[in-house]
């Protein structure tokens, strides 16, 4: 203790404290720039017949064109309805979710595996928007499994 007549000096903690403060500030700043990430598992893209080969249940394909979204049955024919408007970056994609729910109700044995394909120029965020819209709605799960097929104009 100080004042002990030449005994041991008290440990100076101020430099250590400075280091700690700097480290904490660094960690706080770094953490602020990090983003919280989640994952969405998908099934491999396939060339040719999309949908996983020998699947028996009818499946739905969502084809994202440059100006609209089309729903196809089994990757072949249109589902007899007018094309849907494209999703916007900020906001829900309610039209697609509503249509997928109608199809899920109308075709009870439809595969849970939704095939998503897009024009080669379509940005990635639109694919993710469609996946989000197809995953579930307020009534429950819709198409939890997504297969990405190759681009429309390969």
């Amino acid at each position: 203790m100080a004042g002990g007549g030449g005994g041991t000096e008290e440990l100076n903690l101020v430099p250590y404290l400075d280091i700690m403060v700097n480290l904490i500030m660094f960690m706080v700043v770094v953490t602020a720039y990090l983003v919280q990430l989640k994952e969405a598992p998908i099934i491999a893209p396939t060339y040719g017949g999309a949908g996983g080969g020998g699947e028996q249940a009818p499946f739905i394909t969502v084809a994202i064109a440059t100006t609209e979204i089309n729903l196809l049955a089994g990757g072949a024919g249109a589902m007899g309805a007018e094309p849907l408007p494209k999703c916007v970056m900020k906001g829900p994609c309610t039209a697609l979710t509503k249509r997928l729910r109608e199809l899920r109700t109308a075709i009870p044995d439809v595969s849970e595996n939704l095939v998503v394909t897009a024009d080669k120029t379509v940005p990635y965020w639109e694919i993710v928007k469609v996946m989000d819209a197809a995953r579930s709605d307020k009534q429950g799960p819709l198409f939890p499994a997504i297969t990405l097929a190759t681009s429309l104009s390969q």
Partner: protein
Amino acid sequence: MTPSATHSSEIHDSTPSGESDDEMMMRRRKHAKVGSAVEGLNLTAMMDIFTIILVFLIKQYEAAPQNITLSEDLSPPLSTTTAEMVPGVSLIISKTSVMVDNKRIVVLADGKPTGTEGWGAVGKALGARRETIKYIGDHGGSQFDGNVMVIADEKTPYDVVSNVLYQAGKEQFTTYRLILRAGGTE
């Protein structure tokens, strides 16, 4: 032992047995007046707090299996998915390049690979990574599970994503996990 603790134990030790609480308090007040001059700030408690905060921040930083920093070049799209990330080989598609485990493999110009190997360079790099993982697995490490984390910029054309995934599939990476930013709207 900290100075405050020493001081406290001295008071406690000198307390005679059978002394009432009031008497003890009076004695403590007198004792405090005698040494009323502040000799120095006790930093030990503050140091303890800072150490705990630092350990907490480090643990929080470690908790995420893969942390990426947002930039102009790489900004994954927002999504409503809630699935937690599972670590795997990272495949990053930014506006200007494709990286395998943070190593730049292909430089992109207008969505096209600039090198002579084209998209094949991605497959080659993933193949080499697969062999490394398999070698580690054969020598007691974790086995190759074909797990690949795809971290792509939100404006990446689908053609680029599709070609990169195709190369990964060719190299036995069959479990694709799209890594997205949490916080999208349904």
